[in-house]
């Protein structure tokens, strides 16, 4: 709720203390299912960061120059999701052209970025918190990087966990959730430094 928050602190806060994944629980589905493998989680993190930055910028422009002047704010969910779907479609085509390897390794998860809650979440947060254009872009970029950092570190941790003796019913999602919980606590350790709500 503070439109005058500094850009640099906003950037670092959205990476660490208010990490979109660990403090707002957004983007969990793909986070849990993709993080089994390091390479594809790295690629997905990159794709999410890109899509998040671009869609936040476009959604800000659309919201402030199209929806507000015509009094159509209640349509924001539909409009935001259409913008996101369009950008994901475009980046899918670009990635297919540029790097077939990455395209193959992402597979079904690339179109699923559309329904990644983190991307819609960032768009809704920037609107609720009244960020201006520059702040929104920085917020989108920072959140994307934070998501990337979280998924890559989880993928690395899960490599180790796979080799450990875990009780049967806790295997798979259970132990992963506990790992994420511990990661969330570690990230919260940064919260004395900066605070952006």
């Amino acid at each position: 709720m503070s439109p005058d928050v500094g850009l640099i602190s906003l950037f670092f806060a959205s990476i660490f203390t208010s990490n979109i994944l660990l403090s707002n629980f957004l983007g969990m589905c793909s986070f849990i299912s993709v993080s089994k493998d390091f390479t594809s989680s790295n690629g997905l993190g990159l794709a999410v960061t890109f899509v998040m930055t671009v869609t936040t910028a476009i959604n800000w422009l659309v919201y402030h120059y199209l929806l507000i002047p015509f009094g159509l704010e209640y349509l924001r969910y539909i409009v935001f999701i259409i913008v996101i779907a369009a950008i994901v479609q475009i980046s899918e085509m670009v990635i297919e052209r540029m790097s077939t390897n990455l395209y193959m390794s992402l597979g079904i998860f690339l179109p699923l970025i559309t329904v990644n809650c983190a991307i819609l979440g960032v768009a809704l947060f920037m609107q609720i918190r009244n960020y201006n254009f520059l702040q929104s872009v920085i917020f989108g970029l920072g959140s994307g990087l934070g998501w990337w950092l979280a998924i890559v570190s989880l993928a690395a941790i899960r490599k180790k966990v796979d080799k450990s003796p875990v009780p049967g019913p806790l295997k798979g999602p259970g132990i992963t959730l506990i790992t994420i919980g511990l990661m969330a606590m570690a990230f919260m350790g940064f919260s004395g430094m900066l605070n952006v709500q």
Partner: protein
Amino acid sequence: MAQKNWIAIAKDNLWYNNPVFIQILGICSTLAVTNTLINTSIMTLGVVFVTGLSALTVSLLKSFIPRKVRMIAQTLIISFYVIIVDIVLRAYVPEVSRALGPYVGLIITNCIIMGRTEAFAQSNPPLLSLWDGLTSGIGYMYVLLMVAFVRELLGFGTLFGFQILPNNFANWTIMVMPPSAFFMLAIFIWILKGYMFRKEVKK
């Protein structure tokens, strides 16, 4: 796809194939609201409403939607119902709507709804799809209510806002903070799956 009967669908969605603790779907937008029971119940009621009706609508419209654009068409149908939920919440329970913040809008990207419309409603008759959507919503609801029950009781000492534990009880602050949501869900998964495993072994 062979048609399953109604009871088998309900059993599947509520227990054997529960969206939350077996498939780990849709926990994205809702772990955050499980720190109080009131928010959780309203949020999950919204989810049940949206899952049921969007499954019904998708099933009714499935022959009119070209396969290529079905994803975006489903998303639009879902957003339509989410907008209704949002407007109703803002009109009748404005303070809950404020507390939920962006998470009402995030019902759109709840993977359960997308999963049910894509996997079930696309290939099944309307009423059966409605039933499937409703039961998977309820399967999601009761797991979240259990998580919220523990978190609110230990975090604030209250249930639905009423003081339950004695005043000198020291609240576990960690319970209202994000990490505990992960721990609680993991513990519930552990218990429920352990129970399931034991039953299978007995058979």
